[in-house]
């Protein structure tokens, strides 16, 4: 019964979405206030209905209703409850349902929180959002119904894959989708503005919180995926430039560019066409990602298995949306020029350069990901484009980005004094060079890129802190003074500092864990000792352990450094009898300096079990997660800025001080 209610709610939501996609936008053209207003109600109703559908599916998983095909394929009675719940979005159909839920949620959020938006803009935005919803919900109702029944119902489910029973993996899709789909509302705003024929500073102000929110979620989602890969998969790596990883990274790159471009449009009323284009392209890349993951177009460890027929449907939806919006852009954008002038050396120019690096980065990733397809189509040859290409093409670009990011915040709007800025930054340059030399000395013969990257990160870190300390006059007056300034200055400025600094921290982590990783693999018997990166490890023994649904062999490794005990690592090899599979559980000892990482393998030789240990030392890898934390914190801080909550910029009675430098 409940699944039927869910199915009904979903279908009803489709009709509501169809209504919402027509009436408000027509109302906006006819200036009919009631028709425009109706979008608020329909957006909330849609969210409710899709929420009911989502709840119905989740309910089916929670109670274990094996008459529902989706539950049979993705659950099992022995699965822990939390993973039964997570299985709701673990399949193609379920994850699509999550997709449209978030789509509807963002629509409802605009309906509720967008009281300060002009009625016509809001109505058009919600209509565009509804168009996207109609496409996806109709796709579900027609081809990917999560509520399909299976008769006769089997006694139990089929899926007990232990690899999927992990909290990191359970949270990764929701966060990622909040990011991907969050950009849908920014896209809707952009298309609505193009239809209105007006993109201005006010529009950019309204769009900013939504862009920030989506960006925060996407950052967290990608990082969670990388972290999961790191601790679960056992090869000590966190990024492989796999097509599905790339497809989440591209919207992140353009989304970051969008965030910055919107700031320029908001502050200076210029860059409108870039901002709108970026808004359209970011979501287009999200859609492309959804398409690639579900269509079987490219091989990847990650992809859902879906047949090409569905793939063509998704391609059609994606195609219409993207071609349509980009055509609208081509038609309307040239009418949007104008806005503030700025000098070649200015914050605007700096941000333009910043966006150049980010956009070229996204283009490089796109070309690398799709090139095998292009080549195969044209010449029927198959090649692989893997990490070597991406590393050699993308890393130099990011170095350039780090340099520009360090200078940019120091530049003032409209016209800046480069010489003055550069002389202020001398100290930071000196420190960066020092860091580079230091690293070169410590890791003799280290790869050049790694050293440059560390220099770039140190440069960025110091210039960011320098800019912040200038802004709050940390060395200029009393501490109380500076504290007062911190409190009174807009949070978005502090958010920027935190986020930029976070990126510098991330880069240090990226470089340390890839360039200076140490590892070795060895046979191990009880009593053997090993040495890695200054640590001494001794295999005390291998014991048998029983878990809730598995048995395991657990190695006990005593870790010492300089004769002093540090920790005991217990990597395991688990055997899940019901699922019939094995997993490796790595044991990780994390410190600021790096992670000690151990995995155990059991190899049968000549009838006896032999143990193999793989020991990896990853320097500075913790900096990655710390940096991401700072990035997300910076974003959240910016999001909490009062100005974003107050809404439409009002003419202030107080004169604006000319020397204020805010982000």
């Amino acid at each position, binding site marked *: 019964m409940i699944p039927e209610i869910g199915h009904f709610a979903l279908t009803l939501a489709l009709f509501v979405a169809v209504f919402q996609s027509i009436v408000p936008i027509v109302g906006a053209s006819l200036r009919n206030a009631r028709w425009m207003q109706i979008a608020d109600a329909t957006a909330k109703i849609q969210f409710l209905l899709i929420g009911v559908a989502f709840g119905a599916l989740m309910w089916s998983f929670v109670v274990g209703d094996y008459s529902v095909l989706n539950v049979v394929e993705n659950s099992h009675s022995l699965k822990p409850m939390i993973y039964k719940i997570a299985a709701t979005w673990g399949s193609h159909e379920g994850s699509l349902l999550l997709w449209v839920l978030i789509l509807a949620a963002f629509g409802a959020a605009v309906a509720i929180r967008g009281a300060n938006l002009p009625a016509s803009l809001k109505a058009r935005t919600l209509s565009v959002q509804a168009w996207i919803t109609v496409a996806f919900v109709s796709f579900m109702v027609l081809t990917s119904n999560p509520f399909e029944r299976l008769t006769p119902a089997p006694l139990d489910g089929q899926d007990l894959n232990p690899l999927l029973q992990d909290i990191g993996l359970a949270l990764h899709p929701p966060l990622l989708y909040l990011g991907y789909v969050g950009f849908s509302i920014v896209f809707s705003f952009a298309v609505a503005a193009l239809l209105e024929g007006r993109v201005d500073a006010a529009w950019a102000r309204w769009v900013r919180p939504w862009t920030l929110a989506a960006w925060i979620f996407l950052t967290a989602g990608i990082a969670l995926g990388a972290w999961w890969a790191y601790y679960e998969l056992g090869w000590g790596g966190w990024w492989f430039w796999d097509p599905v990883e790339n497809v989440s990274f591209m919207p992140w790159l353009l989304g970051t560019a969008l965030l910055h471009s919107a700031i320029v449009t908001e502050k200076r009323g210029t860059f409108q066409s870039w901002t709108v284009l970026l808004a359209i392209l970011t979501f287009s890349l999200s859609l492309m990602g959804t398409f690639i993951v579900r*269509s079987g*177009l490219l*091989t990847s460890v990650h992809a859902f298995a879906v047949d090409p027929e569905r793939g063509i449907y998704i391609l059609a939806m994606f195609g219409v949306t*993207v*071609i349509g919006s980009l055509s609208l852009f081509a038609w309307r*954008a*040239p009418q949007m*020029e104008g806005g503030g002038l700025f000098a070649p050396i200015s914050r605007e120019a700096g941000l333009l350069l910043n966006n150049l690096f980010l956009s070229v980065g996204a283009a490089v990733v796109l070309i690398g990901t*799709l090139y095998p*397809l292009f080549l195969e189509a044209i010449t029927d040859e198959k090649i692989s484009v893997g990490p070597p290409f991406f590393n050699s093409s993308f890393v130099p670009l990011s170095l350039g980005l780090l340099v520009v990011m360090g200078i940019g915040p120091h530049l003032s709007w409209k016209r800046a004094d480069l010489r003055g800025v550069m002389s202020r930054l001398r100290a930071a340059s000196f420190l960066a060079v020092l860091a580079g030399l230091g690293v070169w000395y410590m890791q003799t013969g280290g790869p050049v890129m790694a050293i440059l990257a560390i220099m770039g990160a140190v440069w960025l870190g110091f210039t960011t802190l320098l800019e912040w300390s200038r802004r709050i006059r940390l060395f200029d007056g009393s501490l109380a003074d500076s504290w007062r300034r911190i409190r009174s200055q807009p949070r978005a400025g502090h958010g920027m500092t935190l986020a930029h600094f976070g990126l510098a921290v991330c880069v240090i982590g990226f470089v340390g864990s890839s360039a200076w990783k140490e590892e070795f693999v060895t046979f191990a018997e009880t009593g053997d000792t090993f040495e890695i990166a200054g640590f001494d490890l001794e295999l005390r023994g291998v014991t048998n352990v029983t878990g809730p649904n598995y048995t395991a062999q657990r190695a006990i490794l005593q870790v010492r450094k300089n004769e002093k005990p540090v920790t005991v690592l217990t990597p395991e090899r688990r055997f899940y009898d019901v699922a019939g599979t094995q997993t490796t559980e790595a044991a990780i000892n994390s410190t600021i300096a790096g992670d000690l990482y151990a995995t155990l393998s059991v190899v049968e030789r000549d009838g006896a079990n032999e143990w193999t240990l793989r020991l990896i030392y990853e320097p500075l890898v913790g900096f990655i997660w710390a940096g991401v934390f700072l990035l997300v914190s910076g974003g959240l801080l910016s999001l909490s800025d009062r100005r974003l909550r107050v809404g439409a910029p009002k003419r202030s009675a107080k004169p604006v001080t000319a020397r204020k430098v805010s982000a």
Partner: protein
Amino acid sequence: MIRALAFLPVVVALGLGAFMLWGLTGDRDPSEIPSALMGQAVPAFELVGIEGMDGPGLSSSDITSASQPVVVNIFASWCAPCRQEHPLLETVAAIPGVSVFGINYRNEAFPARRWLGEMGNPFERIGADLDGRVSIEWGVTGVPETFVINGDGLIVYRHTGSLAEPGAFDMLKDAIAAAGAT
């Protein structure tokens, strides 16, 4: 100028879309790798037969010295699709003017003999590739795989997977016919 540039994104998107559409249509298998050995000579190798079985081993000279088309099938007893395609191999063996040779991939002697005894042996010659090294020379990635070699000793066709797949057997027959004609 601006107007022309503004159309650039749409044009690029249309181009990408065309490629993606191409990628979805047709019988394209994204994970299938074309053989690197097409049109090249058979790699040199020499294998003895399966232990405990009468019957000659297989070496590259056996293939190149045959003046008629040769079908080489890589198989193993532990491979389910090999079982599926077996009757089709017997059909091929029955075609006049075609020799069918087998390479037994990473199979222990006893299960291999038992499998052939149970299913029947369509192969004139079998080479036992115990460590899989010879199969690597053929660029083999899994079992079963089937190659067609023409009278000049050049590899002209390869099929990965079972011959029982729809259309696979017809394509093999066409390839054999083409190889025989040259």
